[in-house]
């Protein structure tokens, strides 16, 4: 074998490993999407491929609710003259079945919205993630500016503390935080969902690293032009930091949109404050069996905004880098 076939062999291995890795990541998404399209029977029997056969299915609950009783049979006697009661019952039952039959995909997605106030949950998710991100930026930018561009005694120590805070897991301080919020009477409010996340050490660290790459000349030029330090942060640093801010936005929004742990702790009972992940619980198996189809449909709806936002941000991200024209 010559050099180039060795090279190709190496490449093949690399690709094989990467493909396996991507399957591991993509498979759950595939199943989620597939289940959100299929009927309960197909899910249970594991058949129908990705889309399922999309045959009409009967919504069991709808049929159960409309079960014809004696009164219904009596009132229908005129339409079915000359039939016995049991025959009328059968005819009515057939009618109800046609009325209650739907395509699985329609069934899953309408159930996702009708079984739980999903729109409300999505809106809560938007309110919480956007508030968190906005406050995080308001806090992180001036901090990062001070840590990267201003000279003051103890700067390195403060930055060291920031790095140290990166090491503290949320779960370690969850209980004290909860107690604090409870004493303030803030549990079961938006504030409880937002306040603990407003100071993001990761955001400060990330923006500080980015600001280190901004030439000092730019800040000096702004000072010569008469801009004050706050003005420099918002009018000079913020616009140049858009690419980094987008990267941070992806981290922040994804983390808090998907967060199940914290909302589960501080939102107890009040369904109006549920965030999307809490909403998913509504479909967990109860007495009448698990609702996998609608549950997966809900999950699909919840992740869609993230994926769309990421794709949009990704394009902006690259544009942002090429437009800065700093180097």
């Amino acid at each position, binding site marked *: 074998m010559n050099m180039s076939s060795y090279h190709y062999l190496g490449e093949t291995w690399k690709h094989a490993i990467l493909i396996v890795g991507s399957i591991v990541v993509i498979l759950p998404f595939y199943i989620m999407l597939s289940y959100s399209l299929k009927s309960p029977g197909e899910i249970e029997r594991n058949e129908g491929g990705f889309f399922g056969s999309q045959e009409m299915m009967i919504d069991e609950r709808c049929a159960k609710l409309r079960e014809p009783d004696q009164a219904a049979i009596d009132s229908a006697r005129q339409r079915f003259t000359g039939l016995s009661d049991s025959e009328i019952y059968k005819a009515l039952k057939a009618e109800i079945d046609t009325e209650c039959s739907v395509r699985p995909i329609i069934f899953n997605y309408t159930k996702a919205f009708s079984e739980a106030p999903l729109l409300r949950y999505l809106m809560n998710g938007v309110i919480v993630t956007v508030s968190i991100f906005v406050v995080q930026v308001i806090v992180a930018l001036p901090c990062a500016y001070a840590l990267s561009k201003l000279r003051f005694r103890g700067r390195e120590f403060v930055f060291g503390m920031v790095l140290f805070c990166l090491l503290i897991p949320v779960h370690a301080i969850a209980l004290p935080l909860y107690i604090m919020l409870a004493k303030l009477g803030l549990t079961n409010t938006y504030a409880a969902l937002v306040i603990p996340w407003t100071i993001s050490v990761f955001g400060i660290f990330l923006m500080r690293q980015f600001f280190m790459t901004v030439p000092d000349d730019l800040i*000096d*030029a702004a000072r010569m032009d008469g*801009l004050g330090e706050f003005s420099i942060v918002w009018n000079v640093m913020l616009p140049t930091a858009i690419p980094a801010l987008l990267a941070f936005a992806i981290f922040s929004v994804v983390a808090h949109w998907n967060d199940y742990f914290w909302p589960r702790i501080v939102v107890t009972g009040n369904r109006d404050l549920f965030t999307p992940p809490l909403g998913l619980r509504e479909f967990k198996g109860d007495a009448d069996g698990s609702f996998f189809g609608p549950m997966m449909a809900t999950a699909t709806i919840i992740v869609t905004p993230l994926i769309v936002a990421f794709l949009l941000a990704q394009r902006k991200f690259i544009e942002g880098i090429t437009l800065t024209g*700093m180097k």
Partner: protein
Amino acid sequence: MVGIALNGIQKSFGETRVLNSIDLQIEEGEFLTLVGPSGCGKSTLLRIISGLEAQSAGSVTIGDRPVDGVRASDRDLAMVFQSYALYPHLTVRENMMTPLRMRDLGFWQRLPLIGRFLPGASGKLEGMRKQVNETAEVLKIEALLERKPGQLSGGQRQRAALGRAMVRRPVAFLMDEPLSNLDAALRVHMRAELTELHRRLNTTFIYVTHDQAEALTMSTRVAVMMDGDILQLDTPTNVYSDPANLRVASFVGSPKINVLDGRLDRDGVVTVMNHRLQRRVPGATPQAVKVGLRPEHLRLVPEISGLGEYVGTVRHLEHLGSDVYLHVVLSDGTTTAIVRSDPDHAMGIGHGDTVRIAETRGAAMIFDAAGDRLPFEPVSESAPVSSKTQEVA
């Protein structure tokens, strides 16, 4: 009269002393260049003048007004940076508007959207726009006003940065290596343009560079700085032809001045390479000295003529088109001298050839062991001396 005066400026960063008591008077309308190798403190000095950096001791006066402790933006100076430092998210027009907006508009008038409708704002904006257009016209960047810095070439960005500095008509321009990021051809071109601009604006320019050619070509006066001191402050011609010490002589001029070992005797006669210089150094003690000879003060003489004070072997040839520089190892075997010649004379000379070299009379400069210049006695004899009026290369 708006001159700038520096008195006893000192600056230390922690333990490191970067400026040792600088005194400098900058005349109004002067083009003063601070030149020196990197780390000599020239940029720090400029930043102290601008107000971006605070001095450890000493005072800065602009006109009659002491400006110590005055904010950079209130000193009425403008600065041009090496990296241009244009705001990347704003168009060239907006970049140029920024200093005017900050100076002329109040806080509420600067607010986006509603600011322009406040009383007095629209008139001011109109005036500012006019100023920007006038400046753009001078710099010939009208066509670029709506573009962002990312869409401009290096030279265009340089002009935009100049525009932003010019638009507020400051009492002085501070320039921190503004041409260093340009390519060689454009740099030479911009040198001429800056000189022209200085003549036209008739404003004080303080220019920092490490490039001695920029310093010599553009300035009215040059301050050569090294290790936190101004070694010499003089016109470009004098700095080149009459350097105060060996460090200035070595820094200014390209290729570098040749430094030969010499010997000064009791009578003030200097002997270098078994050859006695004609002029004498009066009142000196006998000592080892350095003899400086610029490449253009050495010339090739025909081998057979027997003329010439030095003999050497050609080690390397640099062809620059109009000139040829020969690197010659002299007969002592250790000293290398650079000799300027023209292509006609240098024709046929190659690596390893032996050449004879003559020096221009009266061109040598003598420095003592500490590097300080030892003056020759005034010439009264018949020997014609024209070295003082040497043209700047």
